[in-house]
């Protein structure tokens, strides 16, 4: 996976230890990293037309959702995407990420996406339960 290079907490304890801001950044980084590959993927499957229509629409839906999620997290965390982009580029992973993404096969792509979305979900949930009042979780 192209996001394998990212250092993300691999367990509950690690995730809980990370301060909030860092976790948020991680989430956004992940989401950002998938922005391009998803659009590429969408174009790809549109051209190939192999999949049934509902898969296509699902894929589109997913891409949109990722974007929306990213925007939502940004808004809720009060982060401007500029800083994030700055961070991403400063790490120098932007180009390589997109290159790697293009090289992936379809199944790998889906597998990596599934995993990363699970990561994002877990981190977000931890954040939520940290931030929100007690009885939410």
């Amino acid at each position, binding site marked *: 996976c192209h996001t394998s290079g990212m250092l993300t907490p*691999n*367990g*509950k*304890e690690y995730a*809980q230890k990370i301060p909030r801001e860092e976790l948020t950044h991680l989430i956004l980084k992940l989401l950002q990293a998938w922005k391009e590959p998803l659009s590429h993927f969408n174009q790809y499957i549109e051209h190939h037309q192999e999949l049934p229509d509902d898969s296509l629409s699902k894929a589109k839906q997913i891409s949109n959702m990722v974007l929306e999620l990213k925007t939502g997290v940004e808004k809720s965390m009060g982060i401007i995407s500029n800083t994030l982009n700055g961070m991403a580029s400063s790490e120098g992973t932007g180009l390589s990420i997109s290159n790697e993404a293009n090289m992936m096969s379809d199944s790998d792509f889906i597998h990596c996406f599934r995993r990363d979305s*699970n*990561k994002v979900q877990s981190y977000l*949930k931890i954040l939520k*339960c940290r931030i929100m009042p007690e009885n939410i979780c």
Partner: protein
Amino acid sequence: MKLRLISSAQIILQLALTAVGLTGQSYPGKPQIIRCRSLEKETFSCWWKPGSDGGLPNNYTLFYSKDSEEKIYECPDYLTSGPNSCYFDKNHTNPWTTYIITVMATNEIGSNSSDPQHVDVTSIVQPDAPVNLSLETNTSANVSYLWAKWSPPPLADASSNSHVYHYELRLKPEEKEEWETVSVGMQTHYEVTSLQAGAKYIVQVRCMLDLGEWSEWSLERRIQIPKEQLPPEKPTIVKCRSPEKETFTCWWKPASDGGLSTNHTLLYSKEGEEKVYECPDYKTAGPNSCYFDKKHTSFWTIYNITVRATNEMGSNVSDPHYVDVTYIVQPDPPVNITLELKKSINRKPYLVLTWSPPPLADVRSGWLTLEYELRLKPEEGDEWETIFVGQQTQCKMFSLNPGKRYIVQIHCKPDHHGLWSEWSPEMYIEIPTDFRVKDMVVWIIVGVLSSLICLIMSWIMILKGYRMMAFILPPVPGPKIKGIDTHLLETGKSEELLSALGCHGFPPTSDCEELLIEYLEVEASEDQQLMPSHDTPSKNTKIILKETDNDSGRGSCDSPSLLPVKCRESRSLPSPLQTQDVKAKEKKRGKGSWETQCTASEQKILPCNSESTKSCTWLAAQLPSSQPAMFAYHSTVEAFKITLNTTNVNSSPVLVGNEENHQSLYPIAETVYDDIEKKSEMENSKTDQTTAQVRQNQRNDKSPFLNPKLMDYVEVHKVRQDEEPTLLLKQKESSGKSKKCTVPGTSKEYTKVSTVVDHHILVLLPDQRTQHPPVSQEPVAETSQNSQQSQTEKNTSYSMTTPSDSRRDTSGSDYMDPSSFMPSFK
């Protein structure tokens, strides 16, 4: 020879004994030689079986002879071979001769000898079985050998070791039935190769001399052949599970171990790493398992897990199993399931089920989010109803039947990819039936009362059905004029009747304005009376009948029928009908006067209208004599309209039209029936109609509704207010016909208004019960009842019945000035 002597002597002895008589003792029974055997052809023994001893101790002697000799010898040795035996040692044994052996049993009384036995030594040779059988196994190169060793049978005479025996060996696996026999030859050992590994074998040997028989089989010896030793088979990894998304466990299944004890080791490597680790904990999760604790569990990485089985012969590795811990989460079932019964607003109970997530799952930090699902079924039912509850830990159940027992179970799963937990243990729910005794009692009382009421009602209906019907649906009364005798009418003496009634003063004079008189004016060329009406005690049931007097048919205040009516019927009786006689001359009255009178009467009427229960007599305002007493009272009209409307009849009442005033559509105050009555009667009597038509003056061409052919009904004679209210209509006297006071055969009492035709024609139904000969002055195109029924629109003439005293008595109705019955018009 000697033998023969001896035997004969024995016989004589026996005979003598039997002759003497038995005293319980006799000579012995015959012994029997069982067997003679030689072990090695040099010696032999014989054994016998004694017969009955005859009660006395017996002595046994064995005699033998050789076949080539006569000499009888006695057994040399009774002891060596045991009791009842004889042992012939070497010196006495000659293998080539045949011995004839007998045994004699002797006791005090006599003796007995066995049958002789011919014994050929060579043929009775049978050695003993070999002894000291020993077995050994040897396994080399996965092949097992069985090594058997034994010794020849022992002989008394150790010197004769030179005998050569032939041996035979047999073996079989313990479970099997068939022996495998091997001829061994003369050795006293043998090696068996074709053996089943792992089986237990039984081995025996026997021997034989070159002559004779095989010995018995030796004692059994058993031995276990060791199993084949193989390297273990490939184990398989069964499953890996994480109960709380923090640790996980893998289980494997070993295959056959090849006969030796096998060791299993689990090895894993992580995605992206080369290093291979071994399972950190084989114990915690039980046999054939590996437990990865928190430190060794990483998420979002794929583990490559294999199991290796090792034994002395070798090892074998299972197929690799790839697992990402995130996706193998299967929580424990929820715990702390509690039920609470609550009552909702309308007293229906509902159940609130609450539970807690399993203890290990860390829901509070958000690391693991669980979704729950319930399933429910009645205790006796088969199918579960599954309810997905989501992430909440409680559920309200409204749909349960009180009194029934339900089984409920919950399970959960992580909200992302994962597995459903096991179902929680069954929970039984029973909702108490909210069964208050009070409710039951109320229901019982209600039931009893209603059944009683039903019984009473049905009883009444049965008994008085007819009367009830009449009560509920009273027929339309014909006009009954007080004092008019139906009989008189029948006889046709209308003059008398009228006079008897004392018709006078009709129409009512103006000083009777205070009497609210409403009347209908049936306008035609002649005055026509219209409007049978039957007053019943109800509001707005005002019928206006025009009172006619002798000359003009005008209603009269002074008419005896009116006033008493008013007085008498202070309670809620219908106002008297008043017929109004429209005379031609009265018609000439201007509209204005009408109107005034209308209004006047209206005023008078209005209060009446408002009083529903009081009887109001609507008295037609007195018209000047010249005026056709036709008043349409709007109020009444309204009422009429209302009532008529409700009866689906063209509600505008019959037109009262003046030939001069084409205000043709004065709503005629039709008989305002009781709502019910009118409706029912009008509806019921549709088929049987006699139309009373208001006939406008013939000059009035604009009255389409008037049918010149119609028999015109001048006025309503009488409205009987008794139980059978009928309206007797006075027939109009048509021009050219002078049937005044003729009483037609059938004077009809009209009891029902069937319809209103054309807004101005009231169709009446004759009284079918009482058929009075019509007193009509007109040709009565009366149809009989039957014909009436057949003709819906036929005009019939109503007979005018002259009131009579008797009639008055019978009718009991209190209106209708007799004077109104004067056939006057024109």
